[in-house]
């Protein structure tokens, strides 16, 4: 570089430039400008709002749930840590249930650290952090995690969350060049799950990086979601021995203790308006409630959706994140709507759908309270037509009592 062709080129010129910049800056900014009144009005409006709240959007699907969940978390700013910021790890981290790890590998200047791992009857969760990712013009690299059991079968991904830079919605920020994320995987396709689970899971985690066009050139101030690539099940066994789509850069062998705490109910079959619907299983674990409903569709050529809700008997304290719906069928119930819904998939003649639901705080304190799981309607869709082709009314109501509880454990 020929410094003679540059300005500034020496200390004296640097001082002159600094002085020139200062004069320009002062000429553009009134010395008495005070931003505080405007900021105060924006940050602390007189009508105070709750410290945090929860918003729901009914009918979320797996493939769009990621973005919707971030929007739902808009009020949950100020989370003190990354794992408390992410939707999929917040309750587990706050409950001290996530296993803290510090498994790091560095290659070509990129460091991948597995910081959290967790498994229970409903979910396997991996929390990771990446440092030193190069950012080339217009291209960023997003981590892709794949998880395999000891036989090399791929465990389907349920949902992933991630953060780059700072996210106001998540209330969290990472230093430049870092990515943090949490990915949930589906253990229900592992042999024996969810009824019989090992005390310890041996897993192989592969982390690869996919180059993707960078949206928005400004560093930081964005969050991203890894779309769920795999529905919970596409065949009776969704485990695949196929290699991941891109060559892995990092491989971790993990041993993850499986939290034994779980209540499993089902199967139960209820008939409404001539249609039998089966609650194949309903599983309450620390990571949340997950249920699977199945039925033989009246028209197998259609794509089916179930409208699901869940009620908890009266006398339980309502958690702030639980939607309250008053009375249902003459009984006061606390009702939660699904937070994640998978697509219907074929299992023999039946079509089945998995749903995830919240665990209300009151329920945590009063296990054994009666739970009602209800499918209010199933809807058949012609893939070529946005209007429902068939609306089959319910309700199919399942009362989860001790009679229907299944033994479970290692």
């Amino acid at each position, binding site marked *: 570089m020929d410094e003679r062709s*540059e300005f500034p080129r020496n200390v004296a010129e640097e001082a002159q430039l600094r002085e020139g910049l200062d004069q320009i*800056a002062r000429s553009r900014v009134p010395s008495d400008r005070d931003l505080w009144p405007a900021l105060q009005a924006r940050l602390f409006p007189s009508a105070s709002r709750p410290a945090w709240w929860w918003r729901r959007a009914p009918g979320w699907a797996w493939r769009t749930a990621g973005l919707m969940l971030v929007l739902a978390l808009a009020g949950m700013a100020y989370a003190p840590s990354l794992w408390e910021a992410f939707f999929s790890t917040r309750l587990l981290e706050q409950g001290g249930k996530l296993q803290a790890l510090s498994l790091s590998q560095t290659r070509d200047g990129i460091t991948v650290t597995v910081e959290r791992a967790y498994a229970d009857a409903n979910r396997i969760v991996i929390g990771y952090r990446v440092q030193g990712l190069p950012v080339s013009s217009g291209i960023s690299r997003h981590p892709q995690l794949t998880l395999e059991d000891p036989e090399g079968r791929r465990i389907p991904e349920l949902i992933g969350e991630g953060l780059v830079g700072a996210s106001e919605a998540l*209330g969290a920020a990472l230093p430049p060049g870092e990515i943090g994320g949490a990915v949930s995987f589906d253990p229900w396709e592992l042999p024996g799950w969810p009824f019989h689970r090992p005390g310890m899971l041996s897993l192989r985690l592969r982390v690869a990086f996919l180059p993707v066009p960078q949206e928005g050139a400004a560093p930081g101030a964005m969050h991203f979601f890894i779309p769920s690539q795999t529905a919970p099940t596409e065949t009776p066994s969704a485990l695949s021995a196929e290699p991941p789509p891109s060559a892995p850069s990092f491989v971790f062998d993990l041993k993850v203790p499986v939290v034994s705490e779980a209540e499993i109910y089902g199967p139960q079959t209820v008939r409404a308006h001539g249609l039998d619907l089966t609650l194949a299983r309903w599983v309450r674990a620390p990571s949340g409630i997950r249920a699977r409903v199945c039925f033989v569709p009246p028209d197998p050529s259609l794509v089916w959706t179930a409208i699901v809700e869940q009620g908890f008997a009266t006398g339980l304290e309502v958690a702030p994140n639980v939607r309250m719906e008053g009375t249902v069928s003459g009984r006061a119930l606390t009702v939660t709507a699904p937070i994640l819904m998978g697509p219907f998939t074929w299992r023999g003649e039946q079509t089945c759908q998995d749903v995830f639901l919240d665990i209300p705080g009151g329920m945590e304190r009063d296990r054994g309270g009666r739970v009602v799981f209800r499918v209010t309607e199933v809807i058949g869709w012609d893939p070529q037509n946005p209007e429902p082709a068939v609306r089959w009314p319910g309700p199919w109501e399942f009362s989860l009592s001790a009679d229907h509880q299944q033994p479970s454990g290692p």
Partner: protein
Amino acid sequence: MEEQEAIARWRRGDPEGMAVLVRRYQQQALRVAALILPDPMQAEDAVQAAFIRAWTHRKTFRPDAAFWPWFRQLVVHEALRLARREGREIPAESGPVEEAGGAPESDPSHHLDSQEMIQRLARALERLSPTQRAIIVLRYYEGLSEEEIAHALDCAVGTLKRHLHEARQRLRRWLSDGL
């Protein structure tokens, strides 16, 4: 209120702590933003957005760190975001730089203390891309090292050096040529 106490109260969510920090740093922030965004209204928008971001992200601030470097990064990011949204990137930024006519007799620094040269410097700055402006401001107004700027802008040091070199060449040529 001392700065440390203000920071502690701000981190606890106390508006009084926030007020102290806003009034202590708003002028400095507005000046940095005004050098990157020549439109004073945009500069003010950028600083307001940075303060709001600072409030929402206050838990990520390390208590042992200095406030201004952390906040300055927010200001620069917001200013660049606004500049890019307005499409103010100069296409020539990534292209080759013409050989500057930086002969000793056309030394711009000889006259930089005159009002005419200050105006010329302001126009030269506006002709730089927002990124190059930010780099010049951080390097020569804020006195950051190249490594610190690269970290603040989340780019490689080599990339930063190339931008800085090009920006300095352009400044020399534009100041010498009278734009």
